[in-house]
């Protein structure tokens, strides 16, 4: 692509990554969550594939595979945390530890990032899964049928 497109991509890249991370991180407070933020970050992968070409991102395939495994395993293990009561029992909610604060007040409130127990961790697990999944789909589609793919 032309130098204008490449420069604009370099400007947009950190902003888009930060927005995707924000959507994943605040999934238990604001609209959005793991799937939506992961799709935002996967669109960054699509942008890079369009601008720089898939061949230069070939090395990311292995990283995507690792991320997909880590996300899936983390999600299932977090679900198994509550197996003492039921599968998917939210044991960290209200425990006072990690993400263990109660909501500041019932009803409308400014929100506290350190709440909701396993929900933020599961959001990150699903977010990693969606980043790796959609990113590798875009990458594989761009590499299909090429000699150097």
């Amino acid at each position, binding site marked *: 692509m032309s130098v204008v497109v490449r420069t604009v991509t370099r400007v947009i890249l950190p902003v888009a990554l930060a927005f995707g991370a924000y959507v994943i991180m605040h999934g238990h407070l604001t609209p959005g969550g793991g799937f939506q933020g992961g799709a935002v970050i996967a669109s960054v992968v699509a942008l890079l594939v369009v601008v720089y070409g898939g061949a230069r991102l070939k090395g990311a395939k292995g990283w995507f595979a690792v991320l997909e495994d880590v996300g899936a395993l983390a999600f299932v293990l977090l679900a198994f945390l509550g197996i003492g009561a039921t599968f998917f029992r939210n044991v960290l909610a209200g425990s006072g530890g990690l993400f263990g604060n109660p909501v500041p007040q019932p009803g409308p409130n400014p929100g506290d990032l350190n709440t*909701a127990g396993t929900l933020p961790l599961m959001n990150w697990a699903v977010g990693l899964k969606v980043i790796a999944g959609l990113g590798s789909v875009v990458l594989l589609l761009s590499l299909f049928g090429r000699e150097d793919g």
Partner: protein
Amino acid sequence: MKRWLFGAAFLVLVGYLIGGGIWLHPFGVPARDEMDRYFIENAQAEVAANNVVTSIVFDYRGFDTLGEATVLLAAVVGVALVLRKVKG
């Protein structure tokens, strides 16, 4: 004969859709709302999350999200399988 049959079926379908539009259940007035009430009133206290949708997706209906993640995994595996490099 065939044309008449298709015309009649088309008219029945159009009438059904128009009737459905006219006698649609009013929006925002659920027929049964016990479960909605429960989520709205207790989700903040039980899951400690402000976003009730996320608390349903990852806590009350967590098993459904596990299936959704499995569907995503299956889709990615399918794409990787179809677009793989074949020798010769």
